[in-house]
């Protein structure tokens, strides 16, 4: 009996101890912890539309923009078909590619600027997630507890690498990177009851979240063992239904290959993801200040880790230096891009004395305009408004306003190409910068013309001015500069004009003619190129010169507006318009773009604040092919008899016409109709005079009768002893025509000189122009084929200093394209 008792007692103790005491408790962890990221649910489509994140542009749109120049590019297009489905199940998303990315790639922990575009942490993680759509993997089904336990053992325990597990329940799939597990068991006789807790990284976080948010789940199961051999196994408790379904081990792409999204280049994604901060990172002191010139700079204030006195992140200031000369103006605008993350703008003189300080609130903007009176490097400091350890993003708009400025009023986007020609006729020293401005007057890009270049021709895009926003281009130079622009689309559309000198900006300008009859349309534009906001009054006049409507519009500094006259309320039934600043500041530049939608001819006409009682039409082309239209406006306050005197090519008067123009009234007519008694082909030039000294302004348009070719230009009063045409188009199917008038009472010798790009004289020829004589010639006829090929620009000078007046026309031999303007009048 006692023997039986002892046997029972021994068995009880063994069983009790076996149940109560964990035999073994082990913990294993991978060599590194994956990072948390958003799982981009398909119902939202945040990767392609920004929903649930920062809105537009979405991560894939940003990717497309920096790689292909458009937001709706191939990566977004693919993503729209695969990552956005409003009818998807609410758990469907990109948890697996995120898990793969978080295992295989370092965590993007900082914002970064790539190709001028800011990528936030969420953008970067989103791109990595999309890039790992299509990742290779090894698959391990998990049906039995030993399969589950073995995957943990092999990967986390042995290899010390994380593994992806699908821990979804109820038919849902939720992949997570598992990086740690703790396991323990108790044993009863031959059954081991395991309790295993896995730790995995969570994906229900803000897309910009940095770090690893960890969750854990515990599973129960048993192994029946015979010695060391598992003879049976099973899940226990809730784990019967909730155990992981499978595990996958992802593998990185072989370099040069990519995932399912064929619009994504994996290597490009890695470049974006690893671009931390901005390109000037490290410019955190006066000594390390980065040198800038005019341009738009998307920037980020970077952080650095400090341990004293309290561990944390500190946001450093950015420093930039800008070389300036006396007489220049330093124009700086800053936009703070984050909510609640303001910045402070400070500008220092070359001796590091603080000149100005401007606080800028989160999502706000601020500006400083500093006239420069000493030479040297001025320093711009951008500092965080408060130390929050954040990385505030901001945009810096910097323009060095130099002594000489010009404006190209058009900067079209899309299929239009913006051809530019610049010439420093007197040589070049110092800086020349072309700035691309958007319609709000914010600089988008700057192109410093390389030192020593006196003549340059090219498309704006080739100069890095690749962000056209239908704004305009500003040219700043330390030296006098001339230019012209030719805006073209395909082989059939062209319009262009001279660069408008900043000196031509004025407080009061007149639009002398809106072509809105007979199917014509006219766009009109106005730019405030001053440094102050302006209130601009618009007075519209009817065909009789009566004030029809008035309007007042605000124009911010640098702002440009452009409207179709037919859809401008103030211009309803109007024929002319006056625009003037209430402040009286000379800050307005205007232009007209007439065109006939039924043909392809169109032109660009600068509208200058220049009016005189006498205007000249230095060249009239009127025959079976060409027409010349003249529009004149009496901008004075009194009625006036306006006299039109026609001359033939030899300078002999051949016809007179008189029209009475009321104040603000205009008159527009084809030259051949104006002088109905004169043979049209004989009209070579026209002089327009207001009988009672009332000021006139006007425009001139040359066109082909088939409507394909059209060129327009403002009418000017006089001429100059020296004219300069900064570009010649004389080959590859182009011709350059010149109409030159000697408006004086005496004859003069006129020299024509062509130069190459290095300002070397190629050829000079002289012609005699008698009083009122007009000369019409092509450059090729003047100099021959061989010389004109290498000629870049033309100078025209009268021998005795008497003024001559001229126009140029660039035309294509195929009869489609034409543009022109006055020679050297800007």
């Amino acid at each position, binding site marked *: 009996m006692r023997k039986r008792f002892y046997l029972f007692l021994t068995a009880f103790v063994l069983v009790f101890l076996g149940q109560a005491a964990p035999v073994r408790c082990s913990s294993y962890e991978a*060599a590194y912890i994956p990072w948390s990221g958003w799982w981009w649910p398909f119902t939202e489509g945040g990767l392609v539309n920004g929903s649930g994140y920062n809105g537009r542009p979405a991560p894939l749109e940003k990717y497309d923009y920096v790689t292909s120049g458009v937001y709706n590019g191939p990566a977004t297009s693919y993503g729209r078909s695969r990552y956005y489905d409003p009818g998807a199940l609410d758990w469907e998303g990109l948890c697996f590619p995120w898990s793969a990315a978080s295992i*295989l790639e*370092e965590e993007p922990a900082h914002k970064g600027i790539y190709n001028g575009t800011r990528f936030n942490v969420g953008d970067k993680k989103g791109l990595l997630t999309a890039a790992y759509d*299509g990742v290779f*993997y090894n698959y391990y089904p998990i049906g039995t507890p030993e399969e589950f336990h073995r995957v943990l053992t*092999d990967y986390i325990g*042995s290899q010390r690498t994380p593994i992806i597990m699908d821990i979804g329940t109820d038919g849902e799939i939720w992949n997570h990177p598992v990086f740690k597990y703790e396991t323990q068991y108790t044993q009863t006789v031959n059954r081991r009851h395991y309790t295993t807790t896995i730790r995995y990284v969570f994906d229900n976080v803000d897309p910009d979240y940095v770090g690893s948010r960890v969750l854990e789940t515990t599973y129960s199961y048993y192994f029946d063992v015979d010695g060391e051999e598992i003879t049976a196994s099973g899940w226990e408790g809730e784990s019967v239904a909730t155990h992981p379904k499978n595990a996958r081990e992802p593998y990185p792409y072989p370099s040069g*290959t990519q995932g399912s999204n064929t619009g994504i280049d994996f290597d490009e994604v890695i470049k974006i993801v690893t671009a931390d901060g901005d390109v000037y990172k490290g410019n955190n002191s006066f000594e390390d200040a980065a040198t800038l010139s005019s341009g738009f700079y998307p920037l980020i204030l970077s952080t650095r880790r400090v341990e004293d006195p309290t561990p944390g992140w500190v946001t450093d200031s950015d420093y930039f230096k800008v070389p300036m000369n006396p007489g220049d103006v330093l124009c700086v605008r800053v936009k703070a891009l984050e909510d609640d993350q303001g910045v402070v703008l400070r500008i220092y003189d070359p001796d590091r004395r603080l000149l100005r300080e401007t606080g800028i609130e989160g999502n706000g903007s601020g500006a400083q305009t500093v006239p420069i009176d000493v030479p040297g490097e001025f320093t711009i400091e951008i500092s965080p408004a408060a130390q929050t350890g954040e990385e505030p993003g901001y945009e810096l708009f910097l323009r060095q306003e130099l002594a000489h400025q010009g404006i190209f009023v058009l900067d079209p986007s899309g299929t239009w190409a913006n051809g530019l020609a610049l010439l420093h006729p007197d040589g070049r020293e110092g800086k020349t910068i072309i700035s691309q401005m958007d319609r709000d007057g914010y600089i988008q890009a700057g192109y410093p013309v390389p030192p020593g270049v006196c003549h340059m021709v090219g498309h704006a895009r080739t100069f890095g001015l690749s962000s056209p926003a239908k704004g305009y281009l500003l040219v700043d130079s330390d030296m006098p500069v001339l230019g012209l622009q030719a805006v073209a689309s395909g082989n059939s559309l062209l319009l262009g004009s001279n660069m408008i000198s900043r000196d031509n900006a004025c407080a009061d300008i007149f639009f002398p003619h809106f072509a809105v009859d007979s199917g014509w349309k006219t766009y009109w534009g106005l730019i405030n190129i001053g440094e102050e906001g302006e209130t601009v009054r618009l007075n519209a006049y009817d065909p009789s010169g009566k004030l029809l409507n008035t309007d007042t519009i605000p124009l911010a500094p640098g702002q440009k507006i452009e409207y179709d006259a037919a859809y401008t309320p103030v211009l309803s039934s109007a024929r002319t318009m006056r625009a003037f600043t209430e402040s009286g500041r000379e800050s307005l530049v205007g232009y007209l773009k007439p065109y006939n939608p039924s043909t392809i001819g169109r032109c660009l006409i600068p509208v200058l604040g220049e009016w005189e009682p006498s205007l000249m039409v230095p060249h009239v082309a009127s025959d079976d092919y060409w027409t010349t239209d003249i529009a004149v406006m009496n901008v004075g306050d009194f009625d006036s008899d306006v006299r039109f005197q026609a001359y033939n090519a030899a300078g002999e008067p051949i016809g007179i016409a008189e029209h009475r123009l009321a104040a603000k009234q205009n008159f527009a007519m084809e030259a051949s109709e104006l002088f109905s008694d004169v043979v049209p082909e004989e009209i070579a030039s026209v002089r327009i005079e207001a009988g009672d000294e009332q000021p006139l302004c006007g425009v001139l348009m040359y066109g082909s009768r088939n409507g394909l070719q059209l060129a327009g230009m403002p009418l000017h009063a006089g001429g100059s002893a020296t004219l300069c045409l900064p570009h010649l188009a004389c080959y590859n199917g182009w011709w350059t025509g010149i109409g030159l008038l000697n408006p004086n009472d005496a004859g003069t010798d006129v020299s024509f000189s062509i130069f190459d790009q290095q300002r070397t004289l190629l050829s000079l020829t002289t012609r005699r122009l008698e009083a009122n004589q007009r000369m019409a010639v092509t450059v090729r006829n003047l100099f021959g084929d061989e010389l004109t090929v290498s000629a870049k620009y033309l100078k025209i000078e009268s021998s005795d200093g008497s003024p001559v007046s001229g126009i140029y026309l660039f035309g294509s031999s195929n009869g489609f394209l034409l543009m022109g303007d006055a020679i050297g009048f800007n």
Partner: protein
Amino acid sequence: MMRKYSILLLMLPLICCMSASLGEAAVANSFSPVWRVGDHWTVKAVYRSYPDQGKWSEPVFWRYDIVERAQEGGMEYLIMEVRDREDRLKVSSRLVYRAEDLSLVRVEASKTRRGKEFVTVLACGGAAPVATEQTLTPYDTPVFPLICPSSLDFSVTKHVDQLKAVRTVRQEVRQVSGVEEMPGLSPGGDLIEVICTGKDELVFTQYWDTALPWPVYGENGNMKYWLVRE
């Protein structure tokens, strides 16, 4: 367990002979590949890729090299190194075969994660089919020699922590011809088909050409691979 393996090994020739005699009247066909130091070949492999289980990746080309014949503990081993041809994946394997019977005894699988190399050593035990795992480099290895026809059961032991899980894998060998049984392979001469199955699943399938050192085609749960004729 060792005793079980020993018995199996001892019985192997007998089982093979029985299978062969029962299966076909023709002369038993026994095949083992011939590997010599300096031999090399290329294998093209594709893998499952997210999200579609049925979708396969772009191909990866693996170069196999017999790099060494080594002696260890009185036994001779052939060392085979496998790495991707362009060295783009940063994944490689070093496979140790017993020279005597070409049984795979050890796999040293190397991969790179976040710039750091991770090496896993898998001991295979020998005398049983080995299926590729924990790497992308295909190393499915049947038990040689392949005897046509034959059907043999082997015990395969997997370590689960300190425990072992034993399962039976059946290796079936037969001679086949015809492209329909060799997905992705052009028609050619007769081939030896090897199918290894577990309780409920396919472990791997291979097709061997007796003139070639590696199966002309194979597949397992994670990959398909082809010998590249160069």
